[in-house]
């Protein structure tokens, strides 16, 4: 690990000021991903700003009937919060599908959003990676890419090529719930819809999010609609627990008199950000649960998907996971 200095600001303004002043500084909250990457020399901050003492840990109702999750509330405290469990069980389930109990006790909601990819080539400083070292190439494209993306990749220009996935489970549920991220920075406060928070690699694969230098996530706002009656989170992985998703699916449905009135479907493990396809969701609205064609919805979401060899199986796996998640959410799942 490289050497760095350390500070522990007591309020948000001081924290943001320190980040702006120290070029090469980073915020540290739970530290579970940052310290891991520092031990691998992938991240090399020269100064760490410990934000654990900022007053951003509460989970409280918002005026519009939603819920505000403090950026520094831990993943465990969020998943086990009574209001999250009863009103947003999809989020609770997704968080609990990720990491281990120890890590969830450390990891924060804000930090979870900023997780870096688990691409092995990103972690291995002995190999090229356009995300870690812009312009150096992509080790995964012609390498072992079983865990890599099948949608929204950047694969034409070797110098910007990137087929990494975003590793978060929480963010997949937040995408389905259409959460709003609250951010503060040198230019004041702003809000970012979760759909615009993470980005596709495009020509700048080294950028994971649209957050600007000096900005701090302070909270995640959940809109009132939480899909507590019809939801499912399915995570498929190489072992039963404590592994990153090969494919995950978050589904939230609203069903009245057997008719689907709203539908959200978000995928994890398949792209550089949680993946949604609004036209596929629209195919479900107005249909009864029995007449809805879940297979066509899955085909639509995966249209344009592309495998790179080892990960081609994910295309069919994702389709089946979507169908199963829709059945589970609609409560029409049969044993198989």
């Amino acid at each position, binding site marked *: *690990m490289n*050497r*760095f*200095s*350390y*500070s*522990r*600001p*007591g309020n948000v303004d*001081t924290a943001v000021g320190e980040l702006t*002043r*120290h*070029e*090469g*500084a980073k915020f*540290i909250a739970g*530290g*579970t991903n940052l*310290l*891991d990457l520092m*031990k691998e020399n992938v991240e090399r901050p*020269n*100064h*760490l700003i*410990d934000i*654990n*003492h900022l007053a951003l840990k509460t989970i409280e109702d918002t005026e519009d009937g939603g819920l505000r999750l403090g950026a520094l509330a831990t993943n*465990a405290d969020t998943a*086990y919060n009574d209001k999250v469990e009863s009103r947003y069980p999809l989020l609770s389930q997704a968080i609990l599908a990720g*990491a*281990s*109990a*120890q*890590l969830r*006790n*450390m990891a924060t909601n804000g930090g979870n959003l900023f997780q870096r990819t688990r691409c092995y080539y990103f972690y291995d400083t002995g190999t090229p990676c356009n995300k870690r070292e812009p312009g150096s190439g992509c080790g995964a494209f012609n390498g072992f890419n079983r865990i890599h993306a099948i949608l929204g990749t950047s694969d034409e220009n070797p110098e910007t090529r990137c087929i990494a996935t975003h590793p978060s489970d929480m963010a997949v549920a937040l995408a389905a719930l259409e959460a709003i991220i609250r951010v503060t920075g040198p230019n004041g406060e702003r809000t970012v819809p979760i759909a615009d928070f993470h980005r596709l690699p495009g020509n700048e694969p080294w950028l994971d999010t649209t957050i600007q230098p000096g900005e701090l996530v302070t909270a995640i706002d959940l809109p009132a609609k939480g899909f507590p009656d019809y939801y499912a989170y399915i995570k498929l992985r190489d072992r*039963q*627990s*404590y592994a990153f998703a090969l494919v995950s699916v978050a589904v939230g449905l609203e069903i009245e008199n057997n008719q689907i009135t709203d539908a959200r479907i978000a995928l994890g493990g398949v792209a550089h950000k949680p993946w949604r396809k609004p036209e596929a969701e629209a195919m479900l609205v107005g249909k009864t649960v029995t007449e809805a064609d879940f297979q066509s919805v899955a085909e639509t979401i995966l249209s344009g998907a592309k495998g790179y060899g080892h990960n081609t199986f994910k295309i069919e796996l994702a389709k089946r996971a979507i169908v199963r998640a829709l059945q589970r959410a609609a409560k029409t799942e049969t044993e198989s």
Partner: protein
Amino acid sequence: MRTTLSPETDASPTTLPEKTTIQLTINGSVHHLELAPWTSLLDALREYLHLTGTKKGCDHGQCGACTVLVDGKRINSCLTLAIMKEGAEITTIEGLAGENGLHPLQTAFIEHDAYQCGYCTPGQICSAVGLMNEGRAKTTDDIRELMSGNICRCGAYPHIVDAIQEVMKIDPKA
């Protein structure tokens, strides 16, 4: 509260941050240590306090051998900096036994032969204490799921689950 451990300038190779005195509360005792900011809590415990019960397995938060309790919650001590835990109450495997002898989980691990090489055991036991504090495990499957952050390469899992199940009084058939 604000602690600055270096001048207000960026750290460069020629101006490395000084070690500073850090106060840590471990197993009820207050310790003052001269530590650099980059010393992990795990290294502080093992290398500075010689509390070697807490093990370094992977040093990347993947194996759980370094599990300790911070304010009663289980965490991976390899993925936190000692300096970040000033003011917290840290409990290691050395702090679990009380005046009346071993912690019930320690006794149960012995009775159930819940280890072979023993390297993961302190982490397993601290993790199980955290699991009990959380109060979320109601079935055997819950124990397996919520203990998945602790790897046992000898494969003693069935006996580990038996030991925890007995102390938590969970019906094996539940």
